[in-house]
């Protein structure tokens, strides 16, 4: 396994071929040529921000939302970026034609069931981004795919039209009720597990949401594959900053690097209460 760390990862100069505002996010389309063939749902990309004279020395990580292998530009990948701080704002301000220094693909991928089972996809904010690409793959495997998306407000829901095609149902929750139902995306999960006989939950979003889902699935047979988001200095496994406390089968806890042993982790093994504590 170890010899495969960062396998396929390549540092390239890639051109932005699309930058569109979608609600409070930017949808970026980036030309990555043949690399799109080796990107899997769950992988992320690490992008240099700020240019040559930048004081920001670390890359920013973004989940790959979707790849397209035969677009007019050759292979492309799509990112959904929230203009949050200095780095992401810089990225969102780049125009078509701008060239980015990126490392891609990074991290592990969502595990795909070998048999067609019922799965639930849960996304918080821009966390929905990788779920649509994942839905297509699951769909192709014959899985029944239902999706829940949540955010604080309508502008932070990312739910593209085409994405809906691969899902059986899509329900939206906002904390201010400005779109879909008023409430949290985690509210209906317990009921849905029962009603739809869910075998796997795939989730991506804020850590608190992932922890809440793990609490719901705890003690059940439902597998919880969650894409975590720890702050990362390197994205390639050399700095040890992105760790989370994770238990192995025997219960031994270690601090695993979420960049190479994640971002997809088994939610049941993450010690959510001990995140941010010395173990």
């Amino acid at each position: 396994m170890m010899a495969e760390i960062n396998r396929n990862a390549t540092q390239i100069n890639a051109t932005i071929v699309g930058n569109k505002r979608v609600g409070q996010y930017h949808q970026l389309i980036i030309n990555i040529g043949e690399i799109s063939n080796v990107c899997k749902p769950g992988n992320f990309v690490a992008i240099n921000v700020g240019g040559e004279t930048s004081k920001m020395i670390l890359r920013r990580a973004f989940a790959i939302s979707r790849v397209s292998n035969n677009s007019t530009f050759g292979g492309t990948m799509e990112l959904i970026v929230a203009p949050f701080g200095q780095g992401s704002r810089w990225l969102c301000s780049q125009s078509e034609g701008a060239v980015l220094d990126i490392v891609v693909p990074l991290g592990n991928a969502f595990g795909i069931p070998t048999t067609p089972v019922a799965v639930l996809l849960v996304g918080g904010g821009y966390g929905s981004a990788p779920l649509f690409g994942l839905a297509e793959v699951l769909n192709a495997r014959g899985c029944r795919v239902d999706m829940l998306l949540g955010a604080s407000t309508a502008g932070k829901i990312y739910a593209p039209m085409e994405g809906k095609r691969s899902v059986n149902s899509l329900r939206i929750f906002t904390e201010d009720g400005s779109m879909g139902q008023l409430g949290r995306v985690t509210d209906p999960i317990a009921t849905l597990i029962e009603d739809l006989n869910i075998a796997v939950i795939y989730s991506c979003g804020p850590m608190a949401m992932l922890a809440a889902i793990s609490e719901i699935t705890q003690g059940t047979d439902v597998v919880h594959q969650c894409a975590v988001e720890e702050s990362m200095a390197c994205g390639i496994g050399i700095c040890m900053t992105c760790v989370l406390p994770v238990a192995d089968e025997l219960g031994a806890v270690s601090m695993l690097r979420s960049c190479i042993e994640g971002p997809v982790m088994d939610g049941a093994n993450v010690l959510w209460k001990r995140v941010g504590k010395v173990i």
Partner: protein
Amino acid sequence: MTVLDFSTTLGNAWFASPVFTASGCASSGRELAQFFPLHEIGAVVTKSIMNKARAGRAAPRMAETASGMLNSIGLQGPGIDSFIANDIPYLLEQKARIIVSIAGESIEEYAVLARKLRSVAGISALEVNISCPNVENRGLVFACDLDASRRVIDGVRRATGGEIPIIAKLSPDVTDVTAIAQGVVDAGADALALINTVLGMVINLDTMRPHLGGKTGGLSGPAIKPIAIRAVFQVHEKLPHVPILGMGGISNGGDALEMILAGASGVSIGTASFGNPTALMSIQSELKELLVAKGFSSLREAVGFAHRNQESESQ
């Protein structure tokens, strides 16, 4: 075209290139192998290893700062036995030159580590990271205490019996880094590595408390380069015959040359690899080109040139 002798030595260890990884910024090498062949750089300096496995500090473990970053890893690692069993063989297989960094909480722990490594084939040098809290002395960092620093190096020296060059890695967080340098050289260090990170803190404006799980952290990256250049210059001035592995904010060939002119015989690249996984490769080739462009025929000629060049100033 000049044929450049790019090789360097630290103690009795010879390296084809003076460009190394920095401890803790390349893990044990595997993770970088996808980006360049490990045998093409001077050496892999491995993450500081302790005797027992260690989980390290709580997250968050990093904060980006202006042209730098803070880290607070707390020496997470698998422990020396696992390291010798798993990591050394991998590096040897890659034909990488290996410098093993060791860290301890007591003078005895350093000696134990050195003894265990003494018999391992294929290690070019030991880097002794003395920027660790000394649990036997109120958690005072060894590197901030002249006597403790000397005793660590003395213990390691006895344990290795002089077979492997010892590189003592110093902290800049001291009133006089040259005094510590002198002390560890007297105690048997063959070379010096400087600088380790500078102690810093970031307050998170959302939580209004220290951002890092470990409260304070080590500052690295371009922000600290002037401090590193100064430390290397001062130490080389005082101890011109002791080879120095210089580090702190090096991110391009010019930075590496600056460090070498200040007195370093080799350079370690840390934080730059986080922003750019192929940093070692580009720094290596840029440094080569610069040395040739400046008319040097060997790396050795450039080492400490900023000192020798001082009198010849014309105006």
